[in-house]
């Protein structure tokens, strides 16, 4: 079976390179985090999870949600409305679900030895769990069968409503004063509380995780694009078969709206 390409070979190679650099960077982060950097004088070896947890949370709460929210706004704005933004929004949200789940898992792994329990009802932990439910709700909404435009419109509004929750997650530590430690890098004084090799390892973690996110997003987008092409090809092919059965010739102009040309079966998906 031959692979179906969604975009030019040059772009596909670039994306593969981005993914490879991201994964290699993650490998280096793990090596530096586990073997090279020293243990923290307060947290001991637990600090090693810091090289993974904040970068994962950065992707889940800011990059993925930000991309989904911005794409939704651009889809809703009539001047920029394009199927591209809808595909990008669903791709970002789906990749975001993976990273939000990872944020929760790494958070509870850190919380067990620190707080003594797997789940502490900490505000940020709880808000992140709610965010995961919001993302799953968005995906559930998208699964409801409906016209592509209607589905995109509903999903765009749902993404915006959910995105409002992200600042609540960010500021919840300050608002509710709970167990979660303050931000290590983006704190209120903009003064990172991490230095030296530890800071560089954390920075590498952020950059690598961002590259991995970009790669996963592009791959998920490619799948969505191919899905769309398959649906269009399926419809065009079914229409052609129906016309062949009736012994007639397919009309030159058909479609839901006047002037909308039906795609020729042979040309679809190329």
């Amino acid at each position, binding site marked *: 079976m031959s692979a179906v390409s969604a975009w030019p070979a040059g772009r596909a190679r670039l994306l593969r390179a981005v993914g490879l650099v991201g994964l290699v960077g993650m490998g280096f982060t793990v090596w530096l985090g586990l073997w090279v950097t020293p243990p923290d004088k307060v947290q001991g070896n637990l600090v090693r999870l810091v090289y993974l947890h904040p970068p994962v949370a950065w992707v889940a709460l800011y990059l993925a949600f930000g991309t989904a929210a911005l794409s939704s706004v651009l889809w*809703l704005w009539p001047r920029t409305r394009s199927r591209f933004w809808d595909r990008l929004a669903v791709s970002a949200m789906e990749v975001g679900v993976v990273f939000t789940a990872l944020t929760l898992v790494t958070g509870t792994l850190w919380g067990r030895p620190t707080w003594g329990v797997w789940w502490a009802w900490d505000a940020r932990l709880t808000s992140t769990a*709610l965010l995961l*439910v*919001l993302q799953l*709700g968005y995906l*559930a*909404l998208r699964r*409801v069968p*409906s*016209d592509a435009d*209607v589905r995109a*419109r*509903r999903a*765009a*509004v*749902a993404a*915006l*409503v*959910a995105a*409002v*929750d992200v600042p*609540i997650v960010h500021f919840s530590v300050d*608002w*509710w004063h709970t167990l979660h430690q303050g931000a290590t890098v983006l704190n209120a004084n903009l003064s990172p509380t991490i230095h030296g090799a530890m800071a560089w390892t954390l920075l590498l973690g952020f950059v690598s995780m961002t590259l991995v996110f970009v790669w996963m997003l592009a791959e998920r987008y490619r799948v969505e694009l191919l899905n769309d092409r398959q649906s269009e090809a399926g419809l065009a092919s079914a229409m052609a078969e129906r016309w062949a059965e009736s012994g007639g010739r397919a009309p030159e102009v058909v479609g839901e709206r006047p002037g909308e040309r039906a795609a020729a079966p042979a040309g679809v998906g190329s």
Partner: protein
Amino acid sequence: MWRDAWLVAGKDLRIEARSRVVVNQVAPFAVLVLLLFAFALGPDRAALAQAAPGLFWLAVLFVALLSVQRSSSVETGEGTRDGLRLSGIDPAGVFLGKAAAVALQLLVLEALLTGGVLLLFGVTVRSPAVLAGSALAGTAGLSAVGVLYGALSSGLRVRETLLPFLLLPVVAPVLLCGTRAWEIAFGTAAKGGGDPFVGLLVVFAAVYLALGVVVYGALQEAP
């Protein structure tokens, strides 16, 4: 926009006054929820007083869900939605009108629930301003998000199951902040100062009212 909102709110409230769904079904359900919570927690008055704010806001979320479902279902009748679109009413006005109607119904139900909480759970109000302020702001936020999601899930075959799944996580901050504010109002809170929570409820309501005004038109276009 405001005139349109007034018209739509009047229409929804007239429909409610004639059908009496809130009075005959939702209000008894709200009281039943309070009774069932008391059965679950037992007759210990101290435990009931401690849990009263959370139970109140949880009951409010449940009745809000019913009110929103009712509010969106009156628009799903044959041609109703098209009629509303063809009438030339500003979508922002439709949103604000529907939110105002839901908010008014919720405030009546909350008054009933407050009476039930005071009577059944043995709590006394120490700070009426925090109590009323948080109830008003929380209700505005609940109504705004509710009407938005009601329109979003309107016409879907899985609306009954999808709406709670979408709505409840979004309104969780209302539950959290409302509960903390009411703990302060009842004097059962560990720490004083209700302002941050009431303030957060006001921000929540303002953000979702603004979002609804902007995006409701796009939802109205969906068949």
